[in-house]
């Protein structure tokens, strides 16, 4: 399947061979030359060896998803050739540096049938001939791939100078290698027709991951504490926040386990410090008792749950959206909570800020769901969205004068009681994990116990009114009406752009960003008018669909579910749409 303006390059090799470095340099250079990119990484859960890939989808409009197949495969190792050969499109090319690569008869016929051109570059020999080291073969390969785009070498040279600015002695040799690759005869290979943007300021575009956007959103929102225990795909939040902690002054701490992370966050938030924590499914499992504690003590709490496939260790470095149920139903007992699913840079940045406002306004746990596909993929944006004003709802100054201990858990209409910080006034209270009266004093009496239980649940009704309805994209008179959440939106919107060009079926997509508590009004009229309603989720059981059904009675007869550790590729959705009569 070919898409008009999209061109896909995939760099593959062994983990530790420099696949990422080549991908990063290439992505930045393409951005700097006026193209839009989306970077997608696949890698195994190990440090050296195994096959890794860095795929760059290139287009002249903003894109946020990957194709399943590539136009050019750049191959650094034998095993990655074998693994990724079949990801090359018809008429595609393979550039490799694998010495005496032998193809099996099956591989030969695949290459022949699909008219794939294979070019070998003796990169290591060239590097050594030029007086460089074997590792510089990567720079030769970079030059070779740059040749394909027909862009000026000068611009890539600038990037090389920048990368090696701290090692001036290797700049010249790397430039030589780059040019050797750039001038290597690859005239047989098909070149893309790139449409370069005509605007001036594309160099100012940002390349960043979802985890970067969450981190930046947290910084903007005045988060001053970040606790975490490393777990893919959440870890790069910890990596980034610690890398800038001199600039921010934030407390960034790696903690001994997720149970401690969650309880420390509760302690810090209780005292008034905005605190973020992040983990993946397994770590969140450990946190759920603490989530329940925030329910009864009404402590604001914000946790990023970056999803990957389970159960157990599952596919640790791959993607899924299968922990919606875990988030919604986390923690024993019944109490208000909020679950939000981010999907791109703007969403990650904004939702992180909103999460703190919601957590502090309603004094509830807020869980931000992301996926490996969002957390670690490389997005290109021209700017960050506007900041959300901070709302804390903490009593201060004169507001504290008439406060008594009995106000802390006072039963109000909305269920939300006044909150103030320890140390701010003499109206002391007990944040009690046992059922309690309005000053936190323990009670086991039926009447106040029921009253408190209802008060805490009631907050959800008021929260629901505060949350936005899902958003609808695409045709107003669709043939197919999709419903989904998370990274699905990124692929869906790219698909709709492609389909518009093809002028085929009319498609609409309804996206849930604020998932729990669930708003249903917009969905219900969408579903009512749908000719064909399709649930699309990156899990096996249709978790959002089940939630919607339980709240609205609307059943999903058609489901497009993917749960093999991969995100939805363009082809997955287009094939589904086009296979429908």
């Amino acid at each position: 399947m070919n898409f008009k303006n999209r061109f896909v390059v995939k760099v593959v090799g062994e983990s530790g061979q420099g696949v990422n470095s080549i991908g990063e340099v290439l992505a930045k250079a393409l951005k700097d030359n006026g193209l839009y990119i989306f970077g997608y990484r696949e890698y195994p859960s190990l440090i050296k060896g195994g096959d890794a890939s860095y795929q760059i989808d290139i287009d002249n409009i903003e894109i946020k998803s990957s194709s399943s197949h590539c136009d050019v495969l750049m191959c650094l190792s034998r095993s990655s050739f074998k693994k990724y050969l079949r990801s090359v499109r018809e008429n595609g090319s393979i550039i490799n540096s694998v010495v005496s690569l032998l193809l099996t008869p099956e591989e030969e016929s695949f290459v022949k049938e699909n008219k794939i051109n294979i070019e070998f570059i003796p990169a290591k020999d060239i590097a050594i001939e030029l007086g460089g080291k074997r590792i510089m073969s990567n720079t030769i390969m970079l030059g070779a791939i740059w040749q394909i785009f027909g862009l000026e070498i000068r611009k890539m040279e600038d990037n090389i100078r920048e990368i090696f600015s701290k090692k001036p002695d290797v700049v010249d040799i790397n430039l030589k290698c780059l040019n050797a690759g750039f001038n290597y005869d690859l005239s047989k290979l098909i070149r893309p027709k790139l449409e370069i943007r005509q605007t001036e300021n594309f160099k100012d575009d940002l390349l960043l991951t979802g985890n970067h956007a969450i981190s930046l959103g947290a910084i903007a929102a005045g988060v001053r504490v970040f606790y975490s225990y490393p777990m893919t795909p959440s870890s790069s939040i910890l990596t980034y926040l610690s890398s800038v902690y001199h600039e921010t002054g934030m407390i960034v701490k790696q903690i001994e386990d997720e149970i401690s992370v969650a309880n420390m966050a509760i302690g810090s938030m209780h005292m008034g410090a905005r605190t973020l924590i992040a983990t993946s499914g397994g770590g969140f499992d450990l946190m759920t008792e603490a989530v329940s504690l925030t329910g009864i003590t009404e402590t604001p709490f914000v946790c990023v749950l970056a999803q990957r496939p389970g159960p157990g260790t599952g596919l640790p470095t791959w993607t899924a959206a299968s922990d919606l149920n875990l988030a919604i139903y986390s923690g024993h007992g019944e109490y208000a909570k909020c679950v939000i699913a981010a999907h791109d840079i703007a969403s990650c940045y904004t939702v992180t800020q909103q999460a703190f406002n919601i957590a502090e306004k309603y004094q509830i746990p807020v869980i931000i769901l992301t996926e490996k596909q969002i957390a670690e993929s490389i997005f290109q944006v021209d700017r960050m969205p506007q900041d959300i004003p901070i709302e804390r709802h903490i009593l201060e100054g004169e507001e504290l004068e008439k406060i008594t201990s009995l106000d802390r858990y006072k039963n109000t209409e909305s269920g939300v009681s006044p909150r103030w910080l320890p140390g701010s006034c003499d109206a002391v209270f007990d944040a009690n994990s046992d059922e309690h009266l309005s000053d936190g004093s323990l009670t086991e009496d039926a009447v106040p116990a029921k009253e408190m239980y209802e008060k805490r649940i009631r907050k959800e009704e008021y929260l629901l009114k505060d949350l936005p309805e899902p958003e609808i994209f695409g045709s107003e008179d669709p043939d197919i009406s999709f419903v989904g959440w998370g990274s699905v939106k990124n692929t869906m919107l790219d698909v709709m752009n492609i389909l518009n060009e093809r002028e085929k079926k009319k498609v609409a997509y309804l996206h849930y960003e604020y998932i729990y508590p669930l708003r249903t009004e917009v969905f219900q009229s969408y579903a009512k008018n749908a000719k064909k309603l399709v649930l699309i989720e990156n899990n096996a059981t249709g978790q959002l669909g089940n939630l919607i059904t339980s709240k609205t009675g609307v059943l999903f007869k058609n489901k497009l579910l993917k749960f093999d550790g991969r995100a939805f590729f363009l082809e997955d959705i287009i094939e589904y749409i086009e296979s429908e009569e």
Partner: protein
Amino acid sequence: MACINCNSTTSPTMKDFQSKNIFTWCTNCGNYGIHTAIRRALVSKKILACNTLTCFDIGCNGNGSDKIGGYNFHGLHGRAIPLAVGAEMANRNVTVIAFGGDGGTLGEGIGHLVHAVRGNYNITFVLHNNLNYGLTTGQASATTKKSMKMNCSPDGTNSELLHPLKFVLSLESTFVARSFSGDVKHMSKVFEQALDHKGFSFVEILQSCPTYNKETPHEWYMDRVYDVGTIDGYDSSNRELALKTAQDQEEKIAIGVLYQDKNSIPQIDRQMNRNGQMGIKIETEVYEETRQYDISKLLEKFR
């Protein structure tokens, strides 16, 4: 932000740390004495109730969370330490004290103890060591003596006993003390020193449990305890000596401050991005720092 109701001349009284709630512990429970001693120490150190946060885990001691003045947080079983440590990081102006039983602390919460000691967070931690799980009706804990027959261990537990002080002293701790629930005066003095200490103050209280631990009641401890201050030339800066002195839990039991590192640097002052060592000194408390931050400089690296 300071307490709006207090000024610099306000002095705390024992009454400030009282609660209207009625105690629910057994007659002669060691918890009564521990509570009284903590109150006394706080008053003696002139720490105001509004500037105190006591953190409790689940267990008999935790049932006292609403029976002591000041701000309280009654958290999860075995998790009082991370809760308290998180609170302490946010606001140094509030004195944070955590209480935990031998069950929660040395059972499912033992990892937290280890890492809080390593990190030297500036809290006082009181281990209520009554040698059993009281609130769940007398099961064996990590400190239950091997031969002792307990609920659910009819022939006695067959696991080896965990010695709290030897364990904590082996962890580069900076303040390690022991006292006994039958001596309020001694406990208060130990608590006062723990509150003064800059870092993680670990205080084990040998606590009587009249209901589930008949073997070592108040009288049993009374006959055996002696303060290290009575040892001629006892050097509390000597960890080896402390280890040796703490060893005996059967015949002659040493109490008092067994070990203290007077040069202890608490966790918050070890934060290299805030403590001035890297050129940036942040004087504010973390909780005061929430405001809108401009990220435009940080974005440069992504261009």
